[in-house]
């Protein structure tokens, strides 16, 4: 399997980050492929009828990043619902009116997505054909008159740095980060032992990845289960505080010891 990356390099056997999941650009892409594969008319096929096959394909996708899995499964659940409704016309789910679940809505999205795919293909074709235009960089001015804008120069430098940075980002294939729950648990235990308490937000940091957030959360559950910490939240959606559990003198809260 070969993928052409944005920077023009070919990556063998590696998928571009965040973009492609097992060859599909997303849930709609998979659905569209099913429709096309079975040579169904996008305008008249009952989308719910594809639910079984869609789910089967999702199952076969194997390892899905959590965020993508959610999107695929969301669509799968919609398809199942459509299917169920067609089998049991009396089935009237509560408050579905303004949700994005109607067959028509889904069909319209699918059709638009099909158009997007075609347009992307046509644009890609043009790009491959390489028939681009060039403007003229040159000029006829010999001596620079005064009045150059130093801010523009600084802005250009900043832009170059950003581009250089982004190019580097694309060059480097970042290995998937690995946080073990064990390791994170130990870290949190140390923080709590040292500081007494810490907020959930602090533990997550400014820009946590999904994996990091999940591992942190699981670690907290584990610590809570093992009676190492107390969790406290004063109001709904409020700050979650993690506190070191007071060690009781008798130790009777530690079963098994």
């Amino acid at each position, binding site marked *: 399997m070969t993928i052409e990356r944005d920077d023009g390099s070919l990556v063998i056997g590696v998928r571009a980050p965040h973009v492609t999941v097992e060859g599909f650009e997303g849930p709609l892409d998979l659905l569209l492929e099913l429709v096309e594969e079975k040579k169904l008319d996008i305008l008249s096929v009952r989308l719910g009828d594809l639910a079984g096959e869609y789910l089967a394909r999702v199952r076969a996708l194997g390892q899905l990043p959590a965020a*993508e899995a959610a999107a695929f499964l969301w669509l799968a659940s919609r398809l199942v619902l459509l299917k169920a409704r067609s089998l049991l016309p009396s089935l009237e789910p509560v408050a579905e009116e303004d949700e994005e679940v109607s067959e028509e809505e889904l069909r319209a999205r699918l059709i638009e997505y099909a158009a997007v795919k075609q347009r*992307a293909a046509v644009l890609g074709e043009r790009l491959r054909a390489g028939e681009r235009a060039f403007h003229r960089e040159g000029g006829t001015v010999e001596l620079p008159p005064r009045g150059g804008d130093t801010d523009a120069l600084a802005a250009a430098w900043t832009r170059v740095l950003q581009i250089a940075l*982004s190019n580097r980002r694309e060059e480097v294939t970042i290995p998937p980060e690995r946080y073990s729950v064990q390791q994170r648990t130990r870290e949190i235990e140390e923080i709590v032992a040292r500081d007494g308490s810490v907020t959930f937000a602090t533990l997550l940091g400014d820009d946590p990845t999904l994996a990091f957030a999940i591992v942190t959360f699981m670690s907290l559950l584990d610590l809570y289960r093992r009676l190492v910490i107390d969790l406290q939240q004063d109001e709904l959606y409020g700050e979650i505080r993690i506190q070191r559990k007071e060690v009781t003198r008798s130790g009777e809260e530690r079963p098994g010891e």
Partner: protein
Amino acid sequence: MGRSDLANRTEAVLFVAEKPVPRSELARVVGCTPRQLESALAELAAAYEVSGLRLQHANDEWQIVTAPEMASFVSTYLGADRLRVSPASLETLAVVAYRQPITRAEVEAVRGVNCDQTIYTLMSRRLIEERGRKETAGRPILYGTTWEFLECFGLASLDQLPTVLTPEGVVSALPE
């Protein structure tokens, strides 16, 4: 079959310009009314049909560029590299090109996937750019295609975007 003097003036000015020139500035420089300029530009565009050059425009800014058919020779001379865009970025680019100006959330609604990365890539290649803010909650950024986009795809203007046959009734019925 001589050309009009106005067309030649316009050509000379556009030739030395290193960036697209707004029509109003062009009219002022060559000394004519916007309407006269319009016919001069049309004359130039027609004359270029048989040449190695083209007249390109966007947002009523004009520039002379090379004809797309000549790209391979120009690339050879300039040592220019071929631009490559991943399929995912191409999809995002297609959505932006045909629906601009458009917010990221709107692009994502159409593609059904997160488009952070592809928008970032397209921005850093200058194929798309910010086009102000949408006056809705959160004032999200609007994106549109750039001058470079036209050049890279050899389009004289956005009107030349390839049309794709779709059941238009259905597509246009989508919520904007």
